[in-house]
């Protein structure tokens, strides 16, 4: 085992980990603020990737060079639009009508929504049943770091995630909006009495989380070069798992959980014999272990029931 292989795997794991972290942050935000486990979160991941693909292909068709500023801006715009629209629609049509219903029903309705969106893409997208090639977003040579060849996409993914997560930190901790969000998460009733517009907080939370999810979808497309209508299912399971490992409701826990999951997965695939057949099971294994030994997650507070 040489240093360059280790380094290469380190970057792969980091790239995968930040993607899971972005999805997990969405899950944990929704749970912390709206008290909803959003099973449709995987679908915004898929829609983001499809949106980026459509725009990327259209731009290439219009003669805009991949990797140019216009190209990247257009992709970025569609990612944000898809995420924001999805989040707003989810709040309006799915989450808001279920306010006050038992948890189990809210969970089931997001499950229904995820199926409808997934199947709609499969049916209505041209040739949606089959995997779609994802256009090359940037044209750059691989970086050579200490003998390891690192794909530029991996570096870009890591940088984008670092920026987004810092931005989320800034929004949540430093702005007035973040104070409203934290207040609503802590005690919805009290926040309402202090004049926080809870409905607006809910919709903004869903939009923020969904945009992160849709960026994660773009990153997935860039890293693997191929996307499919059902890619959201595995992503949502893993993002949820990462959020649970970090402690549902804890944003920084979700980031750590995502990274942990990414590193464990890459470790199993590359260093265990015949590891790739177990890749999908890693997430479940650590979730089950985590739930058995630390049900509130690595960084979660111990939950007490209110009577």
């Amino acid at each position, binding site marked *: 085992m040489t240093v360059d292989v280790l380094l290469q795997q380190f970057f792969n794991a980091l790239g995968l980990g930040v993607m899971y972290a972005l999805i997990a942050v969405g899950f944990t935000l929704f749970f912390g603020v709206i008290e909803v486990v959003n099973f449709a979160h995987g679908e915004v991941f898929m829609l983001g990737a499809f949106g980026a693909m459509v725009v990327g292909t259209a731009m290439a068709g219009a003669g805009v060079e991949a990797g140019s500023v216009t190209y990247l801006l257009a992709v970025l715009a569609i990612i944000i639009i898809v995420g924001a629209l999805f989040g707003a629609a989810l709040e309006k049509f799915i989450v808001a009508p279920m306010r006050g219903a038992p948890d189990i*029903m809210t969970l089931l309705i997001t499950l229904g*929504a995820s199926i409808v969106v997934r199947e709609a893409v499969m049916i209505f997208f041209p040739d949606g049943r089959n995997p779609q090639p994802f256009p090359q977003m940037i044209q750059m040579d691989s970086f050579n770091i200490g003998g390891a060849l690192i794909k530029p996409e991996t570096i870009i993914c890591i940088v984008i995630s670092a920026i987004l997560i810092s931005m989320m930190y800034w929004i949540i901790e430093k702005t007035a909006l973040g104070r409203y969000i934290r207040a609503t998460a802590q005690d919805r009733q009290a926040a309402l009495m202090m004049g926080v517009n809870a409905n607006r907080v809910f919709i903004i939370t869903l939009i923020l989380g969904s945009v992160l999810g849709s960026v994660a979808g773009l990153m997935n497309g860039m890293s693997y070069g191929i996307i499919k209508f059902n890619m959201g*299912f595995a992503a949502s399971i893993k993002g949820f798992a990462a959020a649970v490992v970090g402690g*549902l409701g804890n944003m920084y826990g979700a980031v750590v959980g995502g990274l942990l999951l990414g590193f464990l997965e890459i470790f199993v695939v590359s260093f265990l014999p015949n590891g790739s057949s177990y890749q*999908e*099971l890693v997430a479940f294994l650590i979730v089950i272990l985590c739930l058995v030994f630390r*049900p509130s997650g690595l960084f979660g507070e111990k939950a007490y*029931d209110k*009577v």
Partner: protein
Amino acid sequence: MNMKLLGAEVLLYVLFLAFILIENPVFVAVYIAAIVAGIFFAAKKYPEKLPVWYDLFMANLKQVGAVAFVLGLTLPIIIDGDAYWLQVLNFAMINAMMALGLNFMTGRAGLICLGYAAFEAVGAYTVGILTLKLGVSFWIAFALSGIAAMVFGAVLGLPALRVKGHYLALVTIAFGLIVQETLLNWESVTGGTNGLIDIPSPTLFGYDFGQMLDLGFVSMNYLGHFYYLCLLVLALCTIFIFKLSNSFFGLILSAMREDQLAAQCYGINLTNYKLYAFAIGAIFGGFAGGLYAAMINFIAPENFSYGLSVIVISMIILGGLDSIPGAIVGAFFLTIFPEKFRAFEDYRIMFYGLIIIFCLIFMRNGILPYTRRIFMSGLENKEAEENG
């Protein structure tokens, strides 16, 4: 015997028969729309009548069930042993068993399960492996399929004991996927992707279930045997679930669903009852799988996917959570209805998703809502029975 009720039920049976016999998808849509509109206007015009009828049905579930069973016996004769519809009805009954089991877990005990198909897989592979590879009699394998599913239910219950609703959803999805992965990868036993082929038909005292069923005036292919077998098993399952739900045990599970903390304060051992709920709910999935394997003769891992778990969930949501007749009706409707629109096969899964959303937003209690049981102490109960 309540004759009014009998008449109403025969009428419903005729409506159901018409639903099966109408072939043209357009007519089916019109027919369903007409029935829905009819119920809607009846409810508008006679707002006091419909609840009375509903309560009458719910109060006499024993009679309703018995009549439905007898009418069910005549169904294959009326459809003249049509193989296609026998197959669909068999699937409907197998799905109804799964819906009953999931309804017990999720509707009654409030433990969400998104991997219910795994129990059917366990049952199906138990029957498949035992009868095909070890030559065990179907009837023993069938009994074991329920037991195997029960063991898996208890195993799934173990990590679930310490966690609440949301986490449970994740654990059960994971469970479903792990079972499917195992079936795919453990090729020496499960046959991997190819599955198990040529599972033998059951025989009873030398009578082979794989042959034609000839009743003298009507003959049907081997599916006729399975129709009556499924009907019998479904009836037994329903009686069992019904008795269990109306026992003190069922009441404890209801209490647990409504408020875990309050139930605990009344001295209910949540750990044990959660395990019981998982184990008992899983049995029915196992039986459903056992019948499925013997009927289809061929099982493969993709038959027991996450999608199937979602379909079963949509059935109990449509019927009404915690409603036993609702689970059966939901399973029948959601199995038969898509068969009418086979030209739109692609839209099938989306249809189940839409049903879930529609029901949860517009009729959260389903089409046959669960009726709260009226509390009566033992003495009052006896008096009520004596007074009729």
